[in-house]
């Protein structure tokens, strides 16, 4: 057992096995890990453990010798180490009342080098995403990299000194999009850059040598404009690199910086070797209120470009966005002859707080309106045959696919929804069983949008045939949501089919199940859209 041992006397079982926060590069077999300390109940002894909450231990993974680094604390939520064994930041998310629900605010604290006292850094609200969120520590310069929404509503990354003066230097900001994260390298997690996505994902390297290598590899490797540094040897003389593009799922290489040898180690998707893959074009289209909506258009490789059967494919989340690159779902349908449009509708993350709206559930009218305008754009551009326009979505995208049929019943001639949310009230109720109910409740909100924005409550309005897939072990969206939609559509006399996968969760991580889902979706669409 790594870390605290489980005993017969502990008062509950361990579900969470802990998390490595520092790989302690240079110390063989040693790691720092967060672990949940579980108290014991023993009669007639003072030896029972009574501490509870997340703490940090240093563990030898060969001998299991364990040394406590940070005492457990009932309110602690996360710890951040400097990559050299010093825990410098603690995030605290107090448990509220007797229900043990966590709240929505994470308060971070830091400590100065070799000090034990914690200094507050500020509050981060997990619902509005406002407030400072520390990403990483740069021990060498005694600073933290922090992401926080700027005055323009877009997330930026700044460095804050951890010396008591809290000096801030803006590191990376972008006028259109959020800066998502820092780029870390190797087991030490050295911060070497920051990244954001415009039409394509971009990296800003603080390390000029890595910047040069990335640029030169991007030019030297055919059709591989996307370059990621995936890992490094401890001395950083050897780099593990991924290179790929929209129509290349990618190849991994090891670069020896001394000899300049670039050794190809493996392909990400060898099954697709030799298959014609589609290019992906960033586009924008005009929504009904005039707003320009960014999207990605994937057309069948080497075929007709106009009058095609077409699919609008809204992404999941909704706090997410699609990016330029290889996407297996869009590529499959392009391979089968469909045009695919992936809109970053309002409600998507990554474009600042105005674009995020309240979020894709509470602002569903705007989000679904943008999705449907994407379908109309495919038709007005002559790309889609209006008789052969369909919609396909997964998770929130499945919700959007169903709700699009409620808002505009004639637009899409077939609806495919994988693991969809179908009733916002039911979603709120399901979340009562989780310990993050408070924050998720606030995310979904209360009010008339719960009824108006729930496709299961308007099933009779949907005219297109509906095909759904759902894993029975889905913890993100319960299978009950799809069953409810199926029952309501049946009651309304609408054609519907639900395929359930008994052993799978939200992500359908099973090759056979995914193949079945793709094949069945294609056959369903061909029949519904009248394609030979």
């Amino acid at each position, binding site marked *: *057992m*790594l870390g605290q*041992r*489980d005993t017969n*006397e502990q008062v*509950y*079982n361990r*579900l969470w*096995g802990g*998390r490595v926060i520092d*790989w302690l*590069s240079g110390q063989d077999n040693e*790691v720092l*890990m967060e672990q949940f300390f579980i108290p014991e109940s023993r009669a007639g002894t003072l030896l029972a453990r009574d501490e509870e909450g997340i703490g940090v231990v240093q563990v030898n*993974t*060969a001998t299991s010798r364990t040394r406590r680094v940070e005492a457990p604390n009932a309110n602690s939520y996360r710890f951040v180490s400097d990559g050299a064994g010093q825990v410098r930041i603690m995030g605290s998310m107090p448990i509220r009342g*007797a*229900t043990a629900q966590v709240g929505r605010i994470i308060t971070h604290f830091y400590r100065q080098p070799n000090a034990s006292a914690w200094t507050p850094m500020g509050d981060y609200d997990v619902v509005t995403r406002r407030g400072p969120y520390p990403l990483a520590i740069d021990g060498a310069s005694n600073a933290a990299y922090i992401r926080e929404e700027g005055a323009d509503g877009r997330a930026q990354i700044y460095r804050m000194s951890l010396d008591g003066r809290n000096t801030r230097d803006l590191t990376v900001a972008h006028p259109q999009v959020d800066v998502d994260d820092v780029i870390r390298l190797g*087991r030490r997690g050295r911060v070497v850059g920051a990244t954001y996505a415009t039409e394509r994902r971009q990296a800003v390297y603080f390390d000029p040598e890595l910047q040069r290598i990335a640029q030169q*590899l991007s030019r030297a490797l055919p059709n591989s404009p996307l370059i990621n540094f*995936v*890992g*490094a040897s*401890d001395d950083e003389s*050897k780099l*593990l690199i991924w290179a790929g593009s929209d129509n290349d799922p990618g190849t*991994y290489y*090891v*670069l020896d910086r001394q*000899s*300049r040898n*670039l050794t190809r*180690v*493996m*392909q*990400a*998707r*060898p*099954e*697709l070797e030799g298959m014609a893959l589609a290019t992906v074009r960033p586009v924008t289209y005009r929504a009904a209120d005039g707003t320009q909506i960014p999207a990605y258009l994937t057309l069948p490789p080497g075929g007709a470009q106009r009058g095609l059967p077409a699919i609008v494919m809204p992404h999941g989340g909704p706090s997410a966005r699609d990016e330029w690159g290889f996407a297996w*779902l869009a*590529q499959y349908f392009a*391979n089968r002859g469909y045009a695919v449009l992936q809109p970053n509708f309002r409600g998507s993350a990554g474009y600042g707080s105005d674009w995020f709206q309240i979020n894709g559930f509470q602002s569903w009218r705007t989000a679904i309106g943008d999705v449907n305008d994407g379908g109309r754009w495919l038709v007005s551009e002559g790309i889609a045959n209006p008789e052969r326009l369909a919609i396909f979505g997964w998770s929130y995208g499945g919700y959007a696919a169903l709700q699009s049929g409620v808002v505009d019943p004639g637009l899409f001639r077939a609806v495919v929804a994988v693991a969809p949310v179908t009733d916002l009230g039911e979603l709120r*109720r399901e979340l*009562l*069983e989780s*310990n993050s109910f408070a924050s998720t409740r606030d995310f979904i909100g209360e009010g008339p949008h719960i009824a108006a924005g729930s496709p299961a409550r308007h099933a009779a309005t949907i005219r297109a045939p509906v095909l759904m897939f759902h894993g029975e*072990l*889905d*913890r993100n969206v*319960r299978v009950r949501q799809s069953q409810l939609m199926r029952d309501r559509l049946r009651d309304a006399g609408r054609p519907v089919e639900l395929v359930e996968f008994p052993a799978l*969760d939200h992500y359908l*991580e099973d*090759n056979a*199940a995914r*193949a079945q*889902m*793709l*094949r069945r979706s*294609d056959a369903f669409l061909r029949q519904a859209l009248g394609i030979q």
Partner: protein
Amino acid sequence: MRRLLFILVGLAASAPLAARPSVDSAIAFGARENVTFIALSPDGQRVLYGVPGETAGSRILVLKVGQTQPRAVTRLASEQERIRSCDWVSNQRILCRLHSIAGAAGMVAAGTRLVALDIDGSNVLPLAVGLWSDEVADFLPDDKPNVLLFGRGRGGYPAVVRVNTRTGRQVYVDGARSTPIDFLSDGRGRIRIMRVQEVRGTDRAGRIIRSFYRTAQSTAWVPLSEYNQQTDQGPWPLVVDGDSAYVMEQNPEGRDIVYRMALDGSGRRPSAL
């Protein structure tokens, strides 16, 4: 700017897959990415990576940089367990995060574990998980060799755990994030009644024990009764029998009676004793 030349060497590792059948694009595109995680060893000599199984399942492989044949470290065959990621703790040893998921009685739960092992698959540091209680909630006669036991979930709340009595493997199957004191199962693995003790702001148990039930088709908890421990007033569900419960309650004469109550939402009392 210094010109940097790259010398492309070696072939990609041979795909650890059977020969590709004549192209079925649903199979080709539906295949999960062949590299579920990847990590370079501290000395830069080896690459450690995860490969998904043909259906579910996953394998861990290690490849010496410059060679094409990877070596197997270990594999997980179970459908409900995944190797989420691994990284190196030395040039010979790795640490992996496993994820398991299970469902029963309309509830789904997941757990994680960290496991360390050598790259030849040996010296696995075993994980021991203790049980809080030996009280059996349901012997699951139709689901041998599993039993349901009372345990506790994260946060300290009573929960129900399904244990494989042969392997010791256990999965959280039910629980709640309020303060239930126990659950009643129907003898077929489905939890139908939950008893919840009122908790005051000071975190001390109150006098009222509320019971909730579920109908056969639903996962929703419906209020069933309120029992006052101090006055002994109010219905107290004793046991679930099929689609109904036996409930004990003090009658106006102050004597305890037992009656049967349908758990189908009708509140029907088919018979009294």
